[in-house]
């Protein structure tokens, strides 16, 4: 069998399932609307405010910086696992990486990227 056969099969099943689940409710579901059901679902709790609320732009900046540094910190894990195999070369590579990261961190800090104003 072609090695891509299973992929094609998987693709067909995925499409069929998605199609089935989106068409089936329209065919067999009973419709009994009430105001509760029409509301936005929020973890089973009654919604307290409009969904389209306003966020401060700062939030996005902080969130973005968090993601960047978080992902960079996450790249320490594979190195830590392989540290003994990579030996001194891996250590030096990591030191270079930390220096680059540190300069970026200092730059963001100095430029007020972490200040909530």
């Amino acid at each position: 069998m072609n090695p891509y056969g299973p992929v094609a099969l998987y693709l067909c099943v995925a499409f069929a399932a998605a199609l089935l689940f989106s068409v089936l409710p329209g065919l067999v579901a009973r419709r009994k609307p009430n105001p509760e059901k029409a509301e936005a679902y929020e973890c089973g709790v009654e919604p307290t405010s409009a969904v389209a609320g306003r966020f401060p732009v700062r939030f996005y900046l902080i969130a973005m910086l968090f993601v960047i540094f978080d992902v960079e910190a996450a790249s320490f894990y594979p190195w830590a696992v392989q540290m003994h195999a990579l030996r001194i070369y891996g250590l030096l590579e990591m030191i270079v990486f930390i220096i680059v990261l540190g300069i970026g961190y200092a730059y963001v800090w100095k430029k007020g990227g972490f200040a909530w104003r």
Partner: protein
Amino acid sequence: MILNPFGTADWMAIAPIVALAIASLLVLLADLVARPAISRYGAVAIGLLGTAAAAVLAAMQYGHVYAAFFGGFVTGGFTTVFEEIVAIALAGSLALYATLGDPKRIGGTVALMLWGSCGAMLMAGAANLMTIFLGLELLSLALYCLCGMVDRRGARESALKYLILSSTASGFLLFGMALLFGASGSVLLADLARPQLAANPLFWMGSGLFLIGLAFKMSLVPFHAWAPDVYEGAPLPVTAYMSVATKAATLAVFARVLYAALPAGTASHVMLPVWIVAGISMIAGNVGMLAQHDLKRLLAYSGIAQVGYILTAMAGGSALGLRYAIYYLVAYTFMNLGAFAVATAISGEHEEGARLVSYAGLARRRPWLAAAMTFFMLALAGMPPTAGFLGKILILATSADSGYAWLGGLLVAGTAISLYAYAKVVRAMYLPQSGDHHVADLRPIAPLAWISVTLCLIGVIAMTFYPLTPSNVLPLLR
């Protein structure tokens, strides 16, 4: 270096890129410690030193073949040539930035330009799919930010447009790479040249998607609509940088795929859509120029057509074609940077000299600048005494020789159309128009911009008399 398990070749190979990366970190550090703030000239000086170091290191690699990172990055003549083109583009746009930069964003902008060039140089030597993508994204990410690096509505629009459209193109490219990897089982470009791939439908689909991604980055016609808008909104030095460095880096990748990564006999079929698209670009780009009233938009459309010319040279896949393509690309680099340098020289602090009306009467106010601009426009149009003419003649010869005379014909037609558009700039400068005495000279004399203009002039003229076409590029490509 002794500590490196991969051998010193890896370090030697990426030395120019490392020099640029270190320079960009130094700019950021200088920006941090400087009181009150780093000046434009300080940041640009560090950047230019880094660029010079990178250029020297790249030149020293000429003829030395290092296959670094398990074959992912290859040096030699081909890589060196494209790295030097990137270095020229970087140096030129840094010099323009020193004249025109936004004082609040010096450090970040210069650092981003240097990082973007790291990506472009990585693309120049990339010999596997992952290195290509890494370099492309490094370049593109830097450019997304650079496009928005000025307080102007158009700049934000430009950055957003470029981000969304370019990411879509990256998606195509990546999908194509995934299929190519699926077909060949290897990320190395050299492994794509195996003959049994020619019968594999995955290879054809993959290379099609891959080429769509590249065509977008080169702004060939069905994928060109972003270029004028993005160029118009971006700061002038960034536009100058984009118009040269992005094209050079993408052309380097394209040339390597064309010459070193296709199964024998498939090139004319795989690449046929590209040649057709290049032919359309030469016509549509030049027609698009006719309606423009902004130098940046005009040069964006011009760039669309110029890429078509360069691709025409490569169309036959001959060694000579690659030589002429490189010759024309280098000449284009100088002509285009020169035109942007003139635009910078007539810019004011808050007003970029990009609109064609600000050229009215320039011949009277600044005769030398007007003469230089005329020369660059003639060169871009491919008129006789310039390198542009020589390049086009060589391209015509090689396209006819390799059986793509129809592309040569489209080149001639496109050139004829473009003459009118380039002449519009010249006419604005020389012919007295109603009300041109109202246009004041916006800025006394900007030394760095004038030096850039002069250097670009020298470059174009030198290219005419000493056609520098590195002869041993092709053997070093693989």
